């Protein structure tokens, strides 16, 4: 029985053995500088069929196709920008993991710095106001509070 299960299992294992990693040795370009550029570009491109993975890390077949496409463009002599533009033309800006700064996207990019300025502004005006006020007299404890405090202090 156990042997039969083992046999079934190994058969299944053979069926399900899928590629496990991203950049395959056969994809790598011989030109080291070009390969490095390809890797950098791949890290900023989204694998379209995955969830939030770049094509450099992804195991999907489509990611592999895109990686090869990037390398083909680089070998053909395209600059990094041209290569990315080529991919974006075909697949839309959805492939860009780093959104552009064009159009409505400025809101995204400016959100942090703007919020920081607002925060600073608010804090400074608050500090100015508070700083000029006299130290308010701390309200005297009510009788109950005084009693509770006594008890707590005795502990």
């Amino acid at each position, binding site marked *: 029985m156990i042997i039969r299960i*083992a046999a079934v299992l190994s058969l299944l294992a053979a069926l399900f*053995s899928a590629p496990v990693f991203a950049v395959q040795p056969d994809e790598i370009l011989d030109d080291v500088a070009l390969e490095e550029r390809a890797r950098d570009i791949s890290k900023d491109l989204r694998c379209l069929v995955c969830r*939030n993975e770049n094509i450099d890390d992804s195991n999907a077949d489509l990611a592999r196709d895109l990686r090869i496409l990037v390398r083909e463009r680089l070998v053909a002599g395209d600059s990094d920008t041209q290569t990315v533009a080529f991919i974006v033309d075909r697949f839309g800006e959805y492939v860009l993991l780093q959104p552009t700064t064009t159009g409505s996207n400025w809101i995204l990019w400016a959100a*942090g710095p703007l919020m920081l300025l607002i925060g600073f502004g608010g804090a400074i005006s608050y500090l100015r106001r508070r700083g000029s006020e006299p130290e*308010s007299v*701390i309200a005297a404890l009510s009788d109950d509070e005084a*009693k509770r405090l006594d*008890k707590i202090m005795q502990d």
Partner: protein
Amino acid sequence: MITELGHFALILAFLIAAVQTVVPLIGAHKRWPGWMAVAEPAATAQFLLTAFSFGALTWAFVTSDFSLRLVVLNSHSAKPMLYKVTGVWGNHEGSMLLWVLILTLFGAMAAWFGGNLPPTLRARVLSVQSAISLAFFGFILFTSNPFTRMGLPPFDGQGLNPMLQDAGLAFHPPFLYLGYVGLSMSFSFAVAALIEGRVDAAWGRWVRPWTLAAWLFLTIGIGMGSWWAYYELGWGGFWFWDPVENASFMPWLIAAALVHSSIVVEKRESLKSWTILLAILAFGFSLIGTFIVRSGVITSVHAFANDPERGLFILAILAIFMGGALVLFAARAGVLEAKGVFSMVSRESALVLNNILLAVAAFVVFTGTIWPLIAEIFFDRKLSVGAPFFNMAFTPFMVLLGIILPIGAILPWKRAKLSKAIKPLTGVLVLAIALGVLAFAVQSGRSALGPVGLFLGTWLVFGAGVDLWLRTGRKGGRLGRLRRLPRADWGKAVAHSGLGVVIFGVAGLMAWETEDIRVVAIGDSLEISGYTLTLDEVKRVQGPNYIATRGVVRVAKDGKELTTLYPEKRTYPVEGMPTTEAAIDSGFLRDIYVVLGDRQEDGSWAMRTYFKPLANWIWGGSILMALGGLLSLSDRRYRVAAGARKNARKLEAEGVPAE
């Protein structure tokens, strides 16, 4: 039968939650002690019933009761016992049950240890807390019931996602939930204080331990998740800026801000309304996180099964609680008058700066996470926001925070002279800059990230040391006094150095990592960063519920054998999924990370090798941060507060009117 009892207990808990929401609130308003007193036993009962219900579900998983739909979908009789148990929360329904279990546990703890709270405040806190559990009980019972039976029980289950069959990940959700749900306590205190119209130093002292505990658990949970991703996903990434990761990171950032601002409330009776707002927002982000993970609106690596109905329900919970709390805040925040005055240069101001940076950082993460959604709805653009954006937009805030932290930490309260205050830090600053410049010179031409990380790490760790040393006073016996410093001081120093260690680890790993991808024949060697790796053999191994292809890789340096690594590719036949088990040789300064790839046609194997400097510093630093939180939490002040409870009881017994 046990299943039905569990289901029944859950319904009962739901009903009790409804009572506990309404009765104590009215009681507190009308000052009826009897009505207020309902809260305490009700909170205990809620917890016990939920615990029973959770136990019943666990029982079903342990005994592989395949008449339960949830067990069929997420378990298998051949699974190791540990994963049968952790499978209880490895799915949407079960994890929600764990969520309410923790929620009611916190509520019950507030009831048990809240004896020294003013009775009306306690009644209101427990009522608000119960309103939250009421909402989530409803969510479970109406949309995600874990106790649904199968009409025709199958012979065996469908198994648990093999990626989740891992000890590190098994305990990652409980810690995260402890954190998320811990923030519900801060929320309840904030809302109760708004209803009460009163926030004072004592309030700050009650809220701080809860927030600190929540932050501490979030730190552990996030650290575990990141560690799991590092060794399990197969390329050693530790943070992906995935929506679900962000969902846990935003509350962490806000909780960190809240921990600091509640110090100001406690010590200086200032920043009250801001602290209340933070407490509301912190839990708000927890709810947003829940929404992101469970609605499937934002695609993510590890979102649970998507269901619009559930999404809507959580959105409604979010709208009611955030809307209600913020309206209440707008109406009542004016009542909370600040007392302590402080000047532009003071520890208070530094903490304000800390709060701004942390809150804005959280805001940046938030915008980045929801931007794809907004762009699609309002601008009709389908776009992605990924790691490159977050690295660029988020990092500057952390760098700024790191720079001001040691200075702010040693500034005196109220008003300070900057030049005088930072004098003790001169040595540390020189050391940090020197190390940074040295690293920059040695690495020649790589990114500036590494040196900046080294600078910040040194600055933070040694800055924390100086802070601690300064606390020992001026004259002799400083070492002895160092030992007797309050634990809160030690906690502060340890947590701050932990942050420094994390920053250095992250920067070092990202800047100095090297990688090698190649085809290796059996018996061949490869060189990476001074290490020689030899692939000795590849064999097939049978695991308890998987089959593995295991490589045997010898690691040597300068001709000396160091260790042997066994990278694996596993197949789980039940789930039909392959996983990669990287083999890692962990060292203090570096990890060697080996992944086995596919067999090539000529019988050689694809292999991926990484040299990962400082990887362990990331998790070591996270542990330090958590440890710092723990030290602070065990400070004498809180224990005194706990002791005071007995006295409060005695007071009541002596017949002193409660309020």
